[in-house]
């Protein structure tokens, strides 16, 4: 139970790759060639930084739900820790995604209006999703007994993850939105993204997913130490 915290070599390799890739993505993201478009102009480079936040959120919610499911099967406390940390980081990346999206929208969609938020369906639904995941932590904190807390939070988490694809993809596409990728076809079809930008965008998604995983592993290790200290006071 305690020794199932993963391979240190894999962790260090991923960490080194993430640092190298992210550094490259930042350099290429600022200096690389992009198509010249009105309204977007140079802010199109935000694609490399804003969009991977949502990929990281999606990965986080799915990882969290998986471990919640396994927790319900096994009752292993480590599964509960993993589910909590994955959800916490998903929330962090979601917050970064929504704030970066707000800044981007403020100077493209809402330029000249002075608006930071105008209830665009894509933004509103994303905010609802973040509230749902915020509720997960409120629910956790409301219970003292670790087993009850783990079980109730795991069930809630399984319901929460089901809303994710609806709130991020399905519902916003049914409504008129300024957000790209809502025209019925998948967001990144063959014609949507200039080939030159793919060479930065895909590594960027990989790098941020890797960053998520590194942070997630760190927090799980730390939380697990805390759990063990709590259950074995002689340590």
């Amino acid at each position, binding site marked *: 139970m305690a020794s199932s915290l993963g391979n240190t070599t894999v962790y260090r390799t991923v960490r080194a790759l993430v640092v190298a890739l992210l550094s490259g993505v930042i350099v290429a993201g600022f200096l690389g060639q992009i198509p010249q478009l009105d309204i977007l102009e140079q802010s199109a*480079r935000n694609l490399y930084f804003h969009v991977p936040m949502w990929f990281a959120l999606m990965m986080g919610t799915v990882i969290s739900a998986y471990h919640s499911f396994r927790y319900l099967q096994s009752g292993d406390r480590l599964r509960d820790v993993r589910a909590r940390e994955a959800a916490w980081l998903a929330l962090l990346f979601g917050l970064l995604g929504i704030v*970066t999206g707000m*800044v981007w929208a403020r100077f493209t969609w809402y*330029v000249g209006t002075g608006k930071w938020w105008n209830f665009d369906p894509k933004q509103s639904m994303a905010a609802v999703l973040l509230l749902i995941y915020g509720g997960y932590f409120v629910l956790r904190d409301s219970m003292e007994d670790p087993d009850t807390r783990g079980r109730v939070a795991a069930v809630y988490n399984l319901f929460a993850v089901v809303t994710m694809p609806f709130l991020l993809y399905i519902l916003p596409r049914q409504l*008129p939105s300024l957000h790209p*990728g*809502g025209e019925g076809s998948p967001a990144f079809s063959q014609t949507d993204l200039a080939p030159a930008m793919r060479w930065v965008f895909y590594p960027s998604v990989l790098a941020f997913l890797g960053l998520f995983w590194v942070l997630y592993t760190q927090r799980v290790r730390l939380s697990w130490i805390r759990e063990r200290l709590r259950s074995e006071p002689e340590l």
Partner: protein
Amino acid sequence: MILHPLPASAPAPSLRPQQARPDSAAAYDSTWTEQSSAQSPQGLERVMLDDGKIYVVLAVVLIIWIGVVTMLFRTDRRIDTLERRLDQDIPEDPA
């Protein structure tokens, strides 16, 4: 190149249906106030719209950086808590 994600037929900012009914004079008011946005950008926009809006990208990257730093500090705080707990426990053992 597609400059705007909305198709031309999509309902744009809710002014269009009213424009089609010229019997309502108030519908035209908002149409005219729309034009005032053509003035030169003020304050924050003057900075952010400069140099092809590159400062928007800088702001976004900085926000993500702040997020990573937040993580760093929270992890530190958690280590502090664990260290304090260990410090409380260990001196009691030899005594």
